[in-house]
């Protein structure tokens, strides 16, 4: 990452209140071009609410969101998707009765070539099934058939469908809210590889995860969320796992960590090379 990486997606002072629950309380967020940004935090810290605000699934009560330098106001996930943001929601957002292929291509179906497609608007099911099978294989997920209804899949298979969809369609930002929670060891590694490949293609990725070793393995920066707001933004190279966990849980103050927050003129703070190896390295597979 260069010294002056531009910011792709930022949020400032985001608030969201549900009844008397303050799910977001002046949350800030920044995602730089080409980085993998991990978002970590306790259960109920407000990570999903933050991510939903950034992707149109929730309309924040206050605050601004800027995408590539322009302020945006997403009123629905469709708005965000049109802007090129693709998301894996924690609740997975799959249509249970539809099959794997249909879910992967929902809203973006391929039509047959020629008259069949243009006039009769016929779907090219064969092509979609073929590609869907490839996508799933990419994730190393074994499923019997891409024609299986998603409700009949195992928990991990279902999650893989959502991950494959986001990975396949993201054009500007890919956001994944706990994409590996239900995945096995091998499948998790495959998804982490995929995330890195996506980043290497130049697309920034937001990864929410409770798996700190995984986070340290792939993240360029780590956004620590606590009590509805960002407590710290650090680099895995300069901060240890236990420091991150301490801030997450409130055991230490965030101010004790070296911050990686970009200053307002969009220049990144001096960064340690992100390819410094993570401190933990026992990915048994």
């Amino acid at each position, binding site marked *: 990452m260069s010294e002056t990486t531009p910011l792709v997606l930022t949020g400032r002072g985001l608030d969201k209140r549900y009844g008397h629950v303050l799910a977001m309380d002046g949350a800030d967020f920044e995602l730089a071009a080409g980085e993998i940004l991990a978002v970590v935090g306790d259960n109920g810290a407000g990570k999903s609410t933050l991510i939903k605000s950034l992707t149109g*699934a929730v309309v924040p009560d206050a605050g601004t969101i800027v995408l590539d330098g322009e302020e945006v106001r997403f009123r629905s*996930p*469709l708005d*965000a998707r049109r802007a090129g943001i693709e998301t894996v929601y924690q609740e997975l*957002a799959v*249509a*249970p009765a539809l099959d794997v292929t249909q879910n992967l291509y*929902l809203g973006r179906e391929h039509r047959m070539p020629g008259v069949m497609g243009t006039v009769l*608007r016929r779907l090219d099911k064969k092509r979609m099934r073929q590609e869907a099978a490839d996508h799933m294989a990419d994730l190393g997920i074994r499923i019997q058939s891409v024609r299986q209804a998603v409700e009949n899949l195992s928990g991990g298979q279902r999650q893989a469908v959502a991950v494959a969809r986001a990975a396949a369609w993201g054009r500007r930002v890919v956001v994944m809210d706990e994409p590996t929670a239900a995945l096995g060891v091998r499948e998790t590694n495959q998804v982490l590889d995929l995330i890195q490949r996506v980043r290497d293609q130049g697309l920034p990725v937001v990864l929410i995860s409770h798996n700190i070793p995984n986070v340290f393995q792939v993240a360029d920066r780590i956004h620590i969320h606590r009590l509805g707001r960002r407590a710290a933004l650090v680099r895995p190279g300069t901060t240890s796992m236990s420091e991150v966990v301490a801030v997450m849980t409130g055991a230490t103050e965030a101010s004790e960590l070296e911050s990686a927050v970009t200053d307002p003129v969009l220049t990144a703070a001096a960064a340690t090379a992100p390819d410094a190896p993570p401190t933990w390295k026992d990915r048994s597979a």
Partner: protein
Amino acid sequence: MSRQLAGPLAALAVAVVAFSLTTDTFLNPANVSLVLQQSVVIGTLALGQTLIILTAGIDLSAGAIMVLGTVLIARLAGEGNVLVAVLIGFLGCALMGAVNGLVVARWNLPPFIVTLGTLTVIAAATRLYTSSASYPVTSDVLRLLGSGPVVGGAKITYGTMLWLLLALALGYALTQTAWGTRVYAVGDSPHAARLTGIKVSRVLFSVYLVAGLIYAVAALAALGRTPIGDPSGYQTANLDTITAVVIGGTSLFGGRGGVAGTVVGALIVSVLQNGLTQAGIDSLYQQVAVGVLVIAAVGFDQLVRRRNKS
């Protein structure tokens, strides 16, 4: 799809065999053609109802919209140009469908209440327009759907053909186009559909609009069959269409089912009604029998499904 059809088809087969054995008139070509003709109006309406039920909605105004269509077409055709009349009839039905769709999709109100409301409004409007009078159809063009070639003693009406063609077209749209997938997705889980970036309200609106147009086709079929625009006709059409849809295996909770089942469901209802009359069952007992048999058909469907699953 074919597996989903097994239950309703089996129920239909049982009914047909039973009536063939117990009456000597049921299998007459003329009577078989009659059953088909009697299925056409409810069957066509039920295609629109299927669409709406697939999105976890319900349309209580289906019959009222169709009746408005018949009355508009019959009266205007009597007063002037048939084609203009048909056009206005279609416009009227489409408009009513659009109103339903707008209220359901935009304001997010329960379809049951919305269509119950529009039902009363449309029925009242129809009465105002007709002053409760009926308008006989004189034009041969409008009677076309009730006529057709006679093959071996059985009249195959153009209305029957149109119904089945429409079912095919709708089946195509539901299973072979992106729109169809979205209809299923919206009915299956509106929340998930919204999160994946589907314009749920636009899909809903389109469904009610298309249903309105299908009801207009049903209005034409009705005029072909009963050549009169009668504001007091088809009072039980709503319940009948919902029955056909549910017997056909489409879930009232949305997202599961399809038009092929609905066609079979409409046929089952017609076969029961016709067959019981052929068998000379007293009309009161006929009602009892239809009630019991409808439950039996759905139960049978469940049974077949369970078999197929394991």
